[in-house]
């Protein structure tokens, strides 16, 4: 259960931090505000998941301790969310692929037999619904936009595609969670994801890559070096000045 909650909380923590890196740097003011809002939503969701994870673990660690005092190999997020921002198109494509998965995942978790999980999911799913609406609209406009924006979005999709498969892979923990009625198997989401993805890509005039190759490991703690760099920045203050308050 603890591991399952880390998987949920670490996804939104890492992606929330990644998106927050745009604050003050987005191409236009309106996007800057929107991205900061989305980042804050995700950090807020992290607080709920990791807060519950700390409770379940029972070792006295709260959400902050879990966020700022664990090293890369303790993180259980998908590799997709730790990918660097690169350009704006890349950031939006990563967001869209995540939102599409995340919205489905939370919708399923609303029916969890664990009331705490269902409660957090019900709160988060409304935010995820808006995030998906926004990222979908932007993917369609940029994919079906100018020749340059189309090329950038297709490049982003091709570059991020190897990280899609991990979202739908089942391992022993997933099987346990499914049998306990806490969370359905990730693989059960794939048909819905594929259908929604095809619909959006068609409107965006983007081509779905054919390869089924999937980079795996994030959910069991094997990460790319990019996560280490991100944590070095994110955790610096709590590492250098433990328990600092202001």
């Amino acid at each position, binding site marked *: 259960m603890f591991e399952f909650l880390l998987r949920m909380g670490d996804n939104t923590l890492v992606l929330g931090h990644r998106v927050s890196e745009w604050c003050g740097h987005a*191409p*236009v*003011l*309106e996007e800057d*505000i*929107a991205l900061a*809002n989305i980042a804050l939503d995700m950090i807020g969701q992290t607080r709920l998941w990791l807060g519950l994870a700390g409770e379940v673990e029972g070792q006295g660690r709260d959400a902050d301790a879990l966020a700022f005092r664990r090293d890369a190999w303790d993180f259980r997020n998908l590799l997709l969310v730790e990918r660097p921002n690169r350009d704006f198109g890349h950031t939006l494509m990563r967001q869209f692929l995540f939102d599409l998965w995340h919205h489905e995942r939370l919708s399923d978790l609303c029916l969890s037999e664990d009331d705490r999980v269902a409660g957090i999911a019900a709160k988060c799913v409304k935010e995820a619904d808006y995030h998906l609406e*926004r990222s979908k609209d*932007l993917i369609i*406009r940029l994919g079906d936009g100018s020749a340059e924006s189309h090329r950038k979005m297709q490049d982003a999709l091709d570059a991020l595609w190897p990280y899609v498969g991990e979202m739908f892979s089942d391992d022993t923990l997933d099987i346990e969670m499914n049998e306990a009625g806490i969370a359905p198997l990730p693989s059960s989401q794939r048909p819905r994801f594929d259908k929604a993805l095809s619909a959006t890509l068609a409107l965006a005039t983007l081509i779905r890559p054919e390869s089924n190759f999937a980079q795996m490991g994030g959910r069991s703690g094997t990460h790319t070096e990019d996560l280490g760099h991100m944590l070095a920045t994110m955790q610096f203050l709590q590492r250098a000045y433990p328990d600092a308050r202001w």
Partner: protein
Amino acid sequence: MANDWPLWEIFIRGQHGLSHRHVGSLHAPDAEMAVLNARDVYTRRNEGVSIWVVKSEDVTASAPSRKGPMFDPSNDKTYRHPTFFDIPDEVGSM
């Protein structure tokens, strides 16, 4: 980039029963994105229940230089204001 995007005037209804009120303007590529941008720029702290967006160029405004001819004539016609009636106390506040 923002210079290519049209400007939109944003109207937000604060709560049911009130009318939409002009709150500001922003850039967006089209009307749907303008609504989403308005949601993020102007309703972060629970300010609204409904958003209207109107392209700024579709707003026709009175000219500031015509302020005199437009508005002054109504200023000296006090008989147009209902201030000469004695309202009986029993009516209460109107």
